[in-house]
């Protein structure tokens, strides 16, 4: 093998490795971007909407968590909620069931997990009306209303899509449960509404 062919071969290998490293870096960046891409979030009603089908217990703070039953990331949201599980707070897990699907569609492992959490009531939001009423667009969003019906917290309680662990959202909710008014936090989960094109 001649020196020039050896050099060419080495150059080829070097180029392939460089491309590979670049692909890896791009892949890492892409993964990071996806993981930390927050879902759509609108302003939630500052006061509990009277038209809501969810009945508040009089004098009791209410915590709502909106869940797409098939979103894999929302299981982490429920796991974070389990870590907090406030007492003397009405906790409702609202599971979406789009109009396009039949009954029982929302009864998934996530539904079963939410049902197993002590003190958590699980309900179905057929057609996503409650979600729209509360301005929720992304699975995993948490809303906390105090005993007087005023909104104390709205946001996500995970660090990124599907990741459990200490995060600003969980701390914010904890602060809200103590009577503070923390700022909103990003929500990481699947969109609750089917796209307009698909409708």
């Amino acid at each position, binding site marked *: 093998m001649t020196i020039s062919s050896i050099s060419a071969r080495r150059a080829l*290998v070097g180029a*392939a*490795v460089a491309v*590979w490293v670049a*692909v*890896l870096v791009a*892949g*890492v960046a892409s*993964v*990071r971007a*996806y*993981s*930390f891409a927050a879902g759509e979030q609108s302003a939630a009603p500052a006061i509990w909407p009277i038209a809501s089908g969810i009945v508040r217990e009089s004098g009791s703070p209410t915590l709502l968590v909106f869940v*797409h039953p*098939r*979103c*894999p*990331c929302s299981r*982490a949201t429920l796991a974070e909620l389990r870590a907090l599980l406030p007492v003397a707070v009405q906790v409702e897990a609202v599971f*979406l069931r*789009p109009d*396009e*699907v039949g009954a029982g569609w929302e009864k998934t492992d996530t539904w079963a997990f939410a049902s197993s959490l002590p003190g958590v009531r699980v309900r179905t939001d057929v057609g*996503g009306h409650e979600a729209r009423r509360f301005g929720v667009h992304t*699975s995993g969003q948490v809303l906390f209303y105090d005993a007087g019906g005023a909104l104390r917290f709205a946001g996500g309680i995970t*660090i*990124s899509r*599907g*990741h*459990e*662990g*200490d*995060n*600003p959202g969980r*701390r914010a909710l904890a602060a809200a449960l103590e009577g503070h008014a923390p700022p909103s936090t990003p929500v990481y989960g*699947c*969109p*609750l*509404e*089917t*796209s307009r094109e*698909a409708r």
Partner: protein
Amino acid sequence: MSQTLPPLLSGRAREIFERDVQGLRRGAGKAFLVVLLLQWVAAMLIAWLVAPYTWRGAQSSVHQHVILAVVGGAALNSIPIGLLVTRPDARFTRHAVAVAQMMWAALLIHLTGGRIETHFHIFVSLVMVALFRDPWVLVTSTVVVAADHLLRGVLVPQSVYGVVGPSALRFLEHAAWVSCECGVLALGLRSSRVSMLENADREARLEQMNHEIEAQVQERTRQLEAGHERFRALVENTNAVPWEMDLRTRTFSYIAPQAGRVLGVDLAQTNGGRGIWRHIHRDDRVAFLATLETAASRRDQASDGFDYRMVDGAGNVRHVRSMFSRVTGDEWLLRGLTIDVSRQKVMELELRQAQKLESVGRLAAGVAHEINTPVQFVSDSVRYVKEAVADLSELLEAYRALTTAALDGAEAKALAGRARAAEDDADVEYFLENVPVALERSLEGLGRVASIVRSMKEFAHPDEREMTCVDLNHAIQSTLIVATNEYKYVADVETDLGEIPKVTCHGGDVNQAILNVVVNAAHAIGDCVGASGTKGRITVRTRQQGDHVVVAIADTGGGIPEAIRGRVFDPFFTTKEVGRGTGQGLAIVRSIVQEKHGGRVDFETETGKGTTFFLRLPIEGRGAKKVEVAA
């Protein structure tokens, strides 16, 4: 475990070390081929089981994790697997594998949603990377992990440390744990390297030793083969036939190839087989077998030699002699040598005959003297009878004249007186008394001459080739007659011949043996009595002892001195003066009695008193034991 490097290694030791290390690295590379692929499959499974779809309302699409696992996993494995296949031994390959393996840890942690248990993959990966036996690869792995921690720790610390706003010490704590493991692994690698170097050095030395031993073995083998070839050429190019026999089976485990040429043996039948029996003369098989059985039963290591006859494929008879000895360490194995002594036998026969004739010649003067005496008797007697007959003739004439005159009526008185005078002259009384005696003496003398002549004839007659039944007592008497002149002046002979059966033997040879002993006895007595005029005594006895006949010949000579008793049977050994003996006498006696007849000759002697020789001969001839011989 040694922690110090061995002294300077030989080039071969370094080669062995590099070979072993390369072997281990290749093994690690092959393991990583499998691990990388398995991790890819696992990632796809995890992604599909944990988060197969992402949703938008009722719509679903493949989750990014699945695409990440399939495409990202493939991309992650592409370069390392490609290098492992094409350049498995390259240093760069190991580093690329290390980078990919640590990146797999990050990917799997991400796919499992940051699960704390998945973080253990990092520590397992470091151990696996250490299998490359290259501490620099550990450095690469550590750098990748540190870079990931650093980057995410700055940007999203919660994803690394699980808390928001960790202190800087948390990074150091993580780094310390990883460094600790890398440090331990590095120590282990170093220790392993030292052990491998020592092993390589040991193996190189063993190889060297092996080469040297092999070279020595080859040289020894070459020398052995050369020696073996030389020995084989020596052994197989002579007229002596070496052989080896198993006494248990009576088969030859080896017989030299020249047996076919020298002995006329069919080698195909003989080697390992019992075909030898067909080549042994029918009459010698029993003796041959008896010799083998004696060799088997006795612990004697060697035989002096055993003569017998063999018959080749064409029916020709050969005289052979076998000498053998037991193999040290194996009581059932005999090794021997067989030579064709046919020519020697012919020469011995001729020599014996010549010796016999020489004996006859030596005895001729004595025999002539022995014959002369009776012939003298006959001559004197016949002369006397002649003279007496002459006188009787004159008397007869006188009586005739008287008778005629009487018949004619003439005066017979004068004639009677002349007749009376003639009778007186003839001394008829003397005649009548002595002529019969003279005639008797003549007949006696002639008988003695006839006896001597007959004895000489019997003695000098050449032997038949086969043995015959011989009356030993008669043979002894004939021999004593022949040898009369040798002993009659110095010794009287007494015989005590017992009732013995006829002995199967070569009569002429036995006569020769007895003659030699008798002559020796006469000479021994003669040396003692000298010119004193006294006589000694030679006593000849025969007795039967079991299946043997013993001829004992005793003399009253001076005995055999102790210093020479062991040599008396040696050929050409003699104590007689030059011209009186050739030293062959007793050697011939032993040859005849022991070798030719399978008997035994020994003696008892007492200095100053005399010597007795015992000749033991088997009655039925050589090999008298009746044993079945399977051919």
